[in-house]
């Protein structure tokens, strides 16, 4: 029965909420001892950061993990200037508004283009295609560099959570151009703010609008309008050059209702699947959000390109979403609907459950989920309070949570780069490896984003790519990445058998055991030793 209960909790957050009133069962007599200070430090660095770099364990242990975490909760107060400058210098697209992005990375044909000769035209197109590649690559590169090098590690961990929660696929249409702005102004900007603000920002961002088709969702055509179109179609079959007339032109540009975004808004972004809402609500919410698109006309981001509300595409008739009546004729009713969803109790539970799963345990207990949900509700959706509630709950350091999660490919790769203090000069090699492991960044086609549970990543076969990465990394065979000589410096000119324990201790929280030691004994250099440790089961866990 316990198994069934835990499965129910795992799979259905609302039930989790209903069960939350139950007291947790008393600890059995043979309960494992609480985590030591050493283990807590590792646990915090594994879950609230992308693993420790050299020296991090000592630093955090000296400071106390709690103080470290409180400081991480206020990322802007942490000095990260080196990285911030590097990002600003290398990835200018991340700071641009959408109009500038567009002008720089997909420029219009220059004036007098028609008069240019063919080679000049070709040169322009070549230039523009290159710019288009660059803007996409800058985003991907920045994800890796920030995850590896940011001192605001918790921010990076949390940003990756929201990046998947509000997933967009960079390769869908103009998302190629817009995703950079999305990462900065939707995900990063609000990651320590309020949930409703992030939700609303995502709803109004062109990238989400493109990705989930709301950009084309309009009020349904009336019967008469459809008839006009049909007449034109017939006319044009006979005479392809037939004139449409103004009315028909207007109608022909009109599309109609598209439910895609409205569904995922409730299923994936707020309430959880089939939770509180029905197909009827999906359709009604889609009608509320008709006319929410993007264009050059208004200035929501201080930029001439961005969210646009099209009155002529909006369905002004009465709608009923989750029992609430909407009679509005402006975008305001969509804003109200989204704010209501953000504050729905189902949303508090769903977000708390999902984040608990990410930070604590693949099967978070109902009590923990309720703690997070309560903090979320009581703070009116403050994300910082939600993070605090989950991490400071006793469940976070429960022995059963310790090292119980399998690192996702991103977590594995970034933690290996951090552990080895690697110099990533060009992240493309790393991104290529991630794609081969099944996790190409910003290219998750399904709106679920990448999952973070063990079950999603631990298939027989995946290990070879991790082992290959571990060995290639220390051999300098991951393109664009070098492990610095300083990493191995302390172990130089010493017998490998003597340094083995030190190497192991620098990379994983506990001794590896006999079998792994036998493997490590085969290493001929300290570098190989590091590579082998990165490929052990111990390094795959967090």
């Amino acid at each position: 029965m316990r198994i069934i209960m835990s499965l129910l909790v795992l799979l259905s957050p609302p039930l989790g909420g209903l069960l939350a009133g139950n007291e947790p069962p008393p600890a059995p007599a043979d309960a494992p001892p609480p985590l030591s200070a050493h283990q807590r430090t590792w646990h915090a660095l594994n879950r609230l950061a992308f693993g420790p770099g050299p020296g991090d364990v000592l630093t955090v242990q000296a400071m106390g993990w709690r103080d470290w975490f409180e400081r991480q909760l206020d990322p802007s107060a942490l000095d990260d200037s080196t990285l911030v400058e590097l990002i600003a210098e290398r990835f200018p697209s991340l700071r641009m508004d959408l109009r500038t992005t567009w002008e720089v990375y997909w420029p219009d044909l220059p004036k007098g283009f028609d008069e240019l000769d063919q080679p000049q035209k070709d040169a322009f197109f070549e230039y523009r295609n290159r710019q288009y590649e660059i803007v996409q690559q800058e985003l991907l590169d920045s994800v890796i560099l920030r995850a590896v090098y940011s001192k605001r590690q918790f921010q990076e961990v949390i940003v990756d959570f929201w990046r998947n929660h509000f997933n967009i696929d960079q390769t869908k249409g103009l998302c190629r151009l817009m995703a950079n702005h999305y990462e900065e102004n939707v995900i990063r900007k609000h990651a320590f703010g309020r949930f409703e603000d992030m939700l609303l920002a995502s709803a109004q961002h062109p990238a989400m609008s493109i990705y989930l088709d709301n950009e084309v969702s309009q009020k349904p055509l009336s019967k008469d309008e459809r008839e006009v179109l049909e007449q034109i179609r017939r006319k044009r079959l006979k005479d392809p050059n037939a004139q449409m007339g103004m009315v028909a032109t207007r109608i022909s540009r009109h599309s109609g209702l598209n439910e895609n975004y409205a569904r995922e808004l409730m299923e994936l972004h707020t309430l959880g699947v089939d939770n509180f809402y029905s197909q009827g609500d999906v359709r009604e919410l889609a009608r509320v959000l008709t006319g929410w698109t993007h264009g050059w006309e208004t200035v929501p981001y201080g930029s001439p390109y961005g969210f646009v509300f099209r009155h002529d595409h909006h369905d002004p008739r009465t709608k009923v979403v989750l029992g609430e009546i909407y009679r509005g004729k402006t975008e305001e009713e969509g804003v109200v609907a989204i704010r209501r969803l953000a504050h729905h109790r189902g949303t508090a539970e769903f977000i708390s459950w999902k984040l608990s799963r990410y930070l604590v345990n693949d099967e978070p207990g109902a009590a923990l989920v309720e703690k997070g949900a309560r903090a979320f509700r009581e703070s009116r959706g403050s994300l910082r309070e939600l993070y605090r509630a989950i991490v400071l709950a006793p469940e976070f350091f429960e022995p059963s949570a310790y090292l119980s999660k399998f690192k996702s490919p991103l977590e594995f790769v970034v933690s290996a780069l951090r552990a080895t203090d690697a110099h990533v000069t060009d992240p493309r090699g790393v991104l290529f490896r991630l794609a081969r492991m099944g996790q190409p960044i910003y290219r998750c086609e399904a709106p679920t984003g990448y999952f973070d549970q063990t079950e999603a990543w631990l298939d027989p076969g995946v290990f070879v790519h991790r082992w290959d990465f571990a060995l290639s990394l220390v051999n300098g065979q991951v393109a664009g990445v070098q492990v610095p000589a300083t990493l191995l410096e302390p172990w130089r000119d010493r017998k490998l058998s003597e340094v083995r324990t030190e190497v192991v201790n620098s990379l994983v929280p506990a001794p590896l055991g006999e079998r792994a030691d036998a493997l490590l004994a085969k290493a001929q250099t300290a570098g190989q030793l590091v590579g082998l440790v990165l490929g052990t089961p111990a390094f795959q866990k967090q």
Partner: protein
Amino acid sequence: MATTRRAFLKRTACGVIGATALPGPFVWAHSKTDAEPTRRPTLVIVYLRGGADPLNMLVPYRDRDYYAIRPTIAIAAPGAKDLEEGQRPCIPITRDFGLHPAMESLKPLWDRRLLAPILNVGSTHPTRSHFDAQDFMEWAAPGIKSIQEGWLNRYLQRTATRNDHFLRAFSPQPLLPRALRGEYSVLAAPGPGSDLALDAFADLYECEHGEHAREVEDPKEEGAQVTKDDAEKDPTPLKKKPKKGEAPASPPVTEENLDRRLIDAGANTVQKLRHLNDILRGAKPDRSKYPQGVLGQQFADIAAVIKAEQPVEIAAVDFGGWDHHSYQGGSSGQQANMLRLLSDCVARFVDDLGTTRMESVMILTMTEFGRTAAENGTRGSDHGHGGCMLAVGGRLAGGQVYGKWTGLHPSRLYVNRDLPVYTDFRDVFAETLAGLYQFDWRAADFFPGFTNPANKPLGLFAAG
């Protein structure tokens, strides 16, 4: 999990036989020399993720409602007069249905009675969530979230024997489709993997694996040599079937059992991938025969493994991107391009394997749900209910359309909007397993809560 195989791994990798055990005598029990008698049919599953639109795959070209509710995306009837430039009509296969013109490469398979489309097939659960619908279908347990293992994996478990081949099932992509996930270890590998990496870590994972195996093993089996003879004498299933109503064995996630899973996955990576590496290097899949891109490569790899006489029973690939909410296109366009790729891959695959081999191969495509019968306001279609499957194989009674069809009149649609489901996907799965492997899914209580299908058998397989 085959415990004796664990014992074997332990011995091979940890010194009793030697760390070079590639491929051990165990493997060759099924290799070329005696492959013919033991070779079992192969089922190739292609999952069209996103909810593929059935009405533009199998076009009901005589249905007036079809053209009324899909004014911009309908596929024209054969011989239609008012075609716009570049527009192509469907390819008639029966007096009521035609194939999308981009599926023309499947027409010869239809003519050879290899192709059996199944209409109005899907889930008994009404969800329109991609992700729940996929899970329910891949677990073959609509609405039952306590089942967490794929139906294909459950089949592999229930029929596991002592001499299961390393590549009894595999998926040529980085991660397994959920239908293949579960306790039975199945390889996911998008092509060969690094030998260097396998060699470096083989001992560690295999030996740890052996240690774990020792803990769980039946003491009587300790030290028993597994030989081909033994295997033939004792083909008993190694997995006990759970009692009715019993929860699946899903231990809580802790470090200890994560360790076990890591070791298990690592050891299986070594064993299975070494074998796949060998085959793919030996067989040299001719990827040039297939359409360019990942799907073509995957079909080429599967064909190469089959042609190397490996007893692969199940191969599964995912083909994503079928969620055509807007601008799905008609006879050309987004969906058409994908249909062409799929059809060409299947046709090349059938051709590559040849008639004789196709006698023991079946391809089955599926999708989580169909789409709205009417097009939506953005020249696409939204999430619907009933979908369609395509079955291709030498043993099928192909050349006919399966499944009940009641037209597209709104009164005949599910909640006035979608194709209904008349054929439970479990009917198709059950018939497939029974037809290919004589698997008795009733006796095994294989599909939870599915004991008494309302439908008569579809009769997908040709008699005799």
